[in-house]
């Protein structure tokens, strides 16, 4: 069972403190554990640090890794920037979409995987590339990508 949002916030505040500069770290912790940041958690962060709810929401909305919408247990971030674009991004993403039955920006109905595109991952020498959660996958072919995606729990 995952912990409740307010519990995660409380333990992150213990670790990072309740200073203004801890906000992004606390939010990142919640996001990492739940896959997104529920309103409850944003309110708890605002109260703990002493800033407005709107300010916390403003931080969440700024960063592409932070989400206010529930996401899947696994997050695929596939690079759509230039070198990956030259090396087969289109075919790879099409294969993943077909394998998952959902498109970019969507989550499988069983909550297993969310698919997102992202800017350059710094793996252009091994393009096309993607991250699954924190793990990089490189030199993808459509077949290889299908296999990786199918293996996600």
């Amino acid at each position: 069972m995952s912990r409740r949002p307010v519990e995660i916030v409380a333990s992150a505040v213990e670790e990072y403190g309740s200073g203004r500069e801890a906000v992004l770290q606390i939010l990142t912790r919640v996001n990492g554990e739940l896959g997104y940041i529920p309103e409850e958690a944003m309110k708890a962060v605002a109260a703990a640090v002493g800033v407005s709810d709107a300010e916390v929401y403003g931080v969440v909305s700024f960063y592409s890794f932070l989400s206010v919408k529930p996401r899947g247990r696994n997050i695929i971030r596939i690079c759509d920037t230039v070198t990956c674009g030259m090396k087969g991004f289109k075919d790879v993403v099409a294969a993943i979409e077909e394998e998952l039955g959902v498109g970019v920006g969507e989550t499988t109905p069983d909550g297993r995987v969310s698919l997102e595109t992202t800017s350059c991952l710094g793996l252009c020498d091994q393009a096309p590339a993607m991250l699954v959660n924190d793990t990089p996958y490189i030199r993808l072919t459509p077949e290889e990508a299908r296999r990786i995606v199918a293996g996600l729990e």
Partner: protein
Amino acid sequence: MGETRVLTSEKQPEVGAALEKALGMTAADVVFEVRESGMKGRGGAGFPVGIKWNLAGAASGADKMVICNADEGEPGTFKDRLLLEKYPHRILEGMAIAGYAIGSARGIIYLRAEYRYLVPSIMKAREELLEKKLLGRSILGGGFDFDIEMRFGAGAYVCGEETSLIESLEGKRGEPRNKPPFPVNSGYLGRPTIVNNVETFVNVPLIILNGSRWYRELGVGDDAGTKLFSVSGDVKHPGVYELPMGSTIGELLEIAGAEDVQGVQVGGASGTTITPDELDRRLSFGDLPPGGSVIVFDSSRDMMAVLNNFMEFFVHESCGQCTPCREGNLRLLDATRSVRSGEITGMEELKEFFVLADIMKIGSKCGLGQTSPNCFVDIMTKFARLSGGKGGI
């Protein structure tokens, strides 16, 4: 040409030797050595490193900060990833030397969230340095304390801009600040702060060990040191290459195995797009600013599609704080799409967009909006094959 690889050489100096030597010098002498080396920042903007350190050292204010910019997000750049993977000790040692030089006890590595898989190797290096008394309290038994913590981005290219990075470290939206005040006077939490690139820090121990003169002579002509280049796209051997600063782009492409060249993007999406006629240009702050990213396009590539991709990147990554950048990038993307769809057929119709590009360069608050129109102007003027009008190639 002799052995030019010093950063990525097989023979690496012993960890800690440079820090030990630096601690035997005065802080002012360390700054002086770095200044005399002529090293310019490796993160893109090319500000002289020694001058930045001098300013931070002289600034009044407690708790000075040393920040390593590991946000590497410029499209086509991956040389810092290699350094973080293979040479984490040297990064940390360079930061500690910087700390001694400016009078700081605290360093932060700001790592992009996309590089989280590199954390174990960096943390292991930190542990090893702590054990060897090269970090932590009373380094090498003397009176200098310095430790380093890791903090993370959360997926925003603009956070590589140093004031945006500082905002992000303070837990806020990563929106660039107005300058002045400059970080050297008022940076992280208002403290005097230096922000330097990963590659910049990696150079520091070598400068201290071998001297400023050695370093200057590594470069070609007026340029100092060597430079890492991330080469990708249509080349036989994509990867990171180390060459003397001031080498030509042609020399680099030959080593990387570029056989068919229609165009080259030098310095990332915000850099310069060049044609095969320009391969004798130098990778140098005086000519082609060498951010570190080199992307090669062969003759099969549609340069308008390349431009479209760059402009989508900037539209997505603009923080939206100022109008020239927020609206300007959208309009340049629209214009690119119109050229691709045949709605715009002549250079005449693009004129207003070149004027807009100039406005963005002058009127944007940070480097993102100031440089994002470069690729639009370069690709439209050098590569556009417009069906109508007199302009274009």
